[in-house]
């Protein structure tokens, strides 16, 4: 385990990419890391996709657009946060359709081509729905922001994907879709000037197209071919940039991936899957963040072990009721408190059990591993994000393996 991993990543890397299953809190962790980096004097941008509304408000993103919004010093001050000289925090929300439009505006060779693409009904309908276009656009934006030099660090919150590698592979897949040779081949039989391909390849193409045309309608294929022909001038660039982005993310001194998980088993399984795929593709992984870990409910205390058994729980409930009766506390309330503690203690123990292998993996691979304890209420303010900092990048907790004690220390620190 590398206890300073995330702290170092916040100070030194230029790109942090948060990955993990849907619903594990990637956006919150991304925002908290960005804030932590800004508090270390860096110019930081956090780029999120579909954040919870109140979190968006906290970040000053109530106007949803794809432009970066700097979070004003007064806003930060109101939340009790002062950034050192040079530090700044901006946030943006990724809008796939607008990013795609801007890409075409920027790279179209002439105004006619630009207008033709933007007005094409197929483009309008599919540009935000092409499989992988959201991932591709996140990459595209990341590259653009990184190249601009306006930020020292870009923290990217990735869209939830069904398959772990979608995020990395989507750009290539999309680039392949726009690959000139494939699309030319596709478009050839529809060319009005009769410059369609001849020979075996041409005959196969025609046969395949006839088969597809019979199913989907020749008109659709024609419209699609026209759309693709209109985009033809951009294709070289797509592939080129996909390659650049990938190279950027593979640079170990520049970029780092952080795998976020909740303590739920399926989320942990997905975190593992992500992690292994990232490793297999030689992508730099900084570590894991286990989010919403339930702790502090006596799961480490031997004196509360008896709560695990129903009969003993009843006895303890009766004892507490008797002890609190002189204070005018109703019996049912004391019993309720004990029953609930039994439940919460069991939940916290289950979380610890579920996360143990992830923690061990991090330790064996010298990766960062941090736990954020579950809060009773959702985090939706800058102050709430700032409160996560000690758990996320603060002084390292002692190694948790030896005994139960270091984890208690972690809880006390987190509980402040």
């Amino acid at each position, binding site marked *: 385990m590398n206890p300073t991993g995330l702290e170092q990543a916040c100070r030194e890397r230029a790109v942090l990419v948060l990955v993990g299953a849907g619903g594990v809190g990637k956006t919150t962790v991304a925002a908290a890391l960005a804030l932590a980096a800004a508090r270390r004097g860096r110019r930081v941008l956090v780029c999120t996709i579909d954040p919870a509304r109140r979190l968006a408000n906290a970040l000053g993103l109530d106007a949803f657009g794809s432009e970066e919004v700097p979070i004003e010093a007064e806003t930060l001050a109101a939340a009790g946060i002062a950034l050192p000289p040079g530090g700044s925090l901006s946030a943006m929300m990724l809008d796939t359709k607008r990013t795609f439009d801007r890409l075409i505006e920027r790279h179209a060779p002439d105004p006619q081509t630009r207008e033709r693409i933007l007005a094409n009904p197929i483009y309008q309908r599919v540009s935000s729905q092409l499989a992988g276009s959201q991932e591709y656009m996140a990459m595209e934006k990341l590259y653009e922001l990184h190249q601009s030099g306006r930020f020292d660090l870009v923290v990217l919150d990735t869209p939830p994907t069904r398959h772990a590698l979608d995020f990395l592979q989507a750009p290539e897949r999309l680039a392949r879709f726009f690959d000139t040779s494939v699309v030319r081949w596709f478009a050839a039989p529809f060319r009005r000037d009769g410059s369609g391909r001849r020979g075996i390849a041409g005959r196969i193409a025609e046969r395949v197209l006839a088969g597809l045309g019979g199913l989907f309608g020749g008109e659709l294929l024609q419209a699609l071919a026209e759309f693709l022909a209109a985009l033809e001038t951009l294709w070289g660039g797509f592939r080129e940039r996909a390659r650049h982005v990938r190279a950027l993310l593979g640079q170990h001194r520049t970029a780092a991936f952080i795998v976020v998980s909740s303590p739920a088993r399926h989320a942990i399984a997905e975190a593992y899957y992500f992690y292994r795929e990232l490793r297999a593709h030689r992508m730099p992984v900084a570590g894991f963040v286990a989010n919403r870990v339930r702790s502090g409910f006596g799961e480490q205390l031997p004196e509360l072990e008896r709560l695990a058994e129903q009969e003993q729980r009843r006895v303890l409930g009766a004892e507490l009721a008797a002890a609190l009766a002189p204070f005018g506390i109703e019996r049912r309330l004391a019993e309720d*408190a004990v029953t609930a503690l039994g439940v919460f203690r069991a939940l916290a123990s289950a979380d610890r059990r579920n996360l143990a292998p992830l923690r061990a993996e991090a330790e064996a691979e010298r990766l960062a591993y941090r736990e954020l304890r579950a809060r009773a209420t959702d985090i939706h303010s800058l102050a709430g994000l700032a409160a996560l900092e000690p758990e996320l990048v603060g002084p390292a907790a002692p190694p948790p393996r030896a005994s139960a004690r270091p984890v208690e220390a972690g809880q006390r620190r987190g509980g402040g």
Partner: protein
Amino acid sequence: MRLEDLLARRLLIQGGKGGSGRTTLSAALGLVAARRGRRVLLVEVDTPDRFAALFGLAAPVGYELCPLAEGLWGLNLDPDQVVVDFFRTHVRVRAVYQQILRSRLWRTFYEAGPGLRELICLGKVWRLLGEREPDGRPRWDTIVLDAPATGHGLAILGIADVAAQTLFGPMRSHAEAIRDLLRDPAATVLNICALPEEMPVNEAAELYAAVRERLQIPLGVCFVNGVLPAPAPGFCEHLAARLEQDPSLGSAAAAVLGGPAALDALRACARWRCARASLQQALLQELAARVPLPQVRVPYLLDADFDRRSLEAVAAALERGFAEAMPAPRATAGAAAPEAAP
């Protein structure tokens, strides 16, 4: 809406955010339907199988019918396999469809093309609904579909409409038939799954709005998963508050529990529950306002191992939840929150 009304439809679709319990609920709904004597097919789409674990099977459910329980079968629709099936049915000439499937053009089109995988998977569900026994009865009384997570789920449910407007030829009539089935209130119902948490409530509301405005799929109930039991009435005011403020009450409790650390745990638990209870109540009310469907609440499962035991617990909770379902969108949060499963 009564459970019987829901089960009268032939296609039951569960939509909602990832982690909101769609899969477990779909499986439990399938189990409940099968136990009421229906022949039920449970379908998941383009996802690693999760049914096998829920039903305690060793091998994952794949693209072959898999018996899950009495009267209940499972199927995992892998788009790649559905596509082969699709071409086999529609192109028929083996040499031709194999050539299409092998061609680089098709693969590119299929991998990046918008919505094709989704459309073909929905088409498969449509064909399954049309299958008949030799005696002419439908092969399946009920198909329970675990739709992919919201964003993608909207794509899959909306694709038939887009395709019906965009495509030509045989695929167009195919898409129109699928769309008509999805919009038929006698045949189809879409249930929205949510959790009493901020993001899932937002997503459920977005799904509801999109279904009402664009998809026009008949809506059923809103399943609320993971509802924490409310603290006993008076708990927060009379006990939780005094645990924090009254040192002599605190030491009396600590003496029974075994020390100050145990007292801290008791306090933390009480604090957490009281904060969460009011938040949960507010979120359940917000959900009721933004997703005005009958709410069927399923309590938080303590041993959420997503195994056979969890499944039985959810099935039991479903039956109970329908009996207690709030008929109108008026929220009476907390009042009907059932006990956590043991």
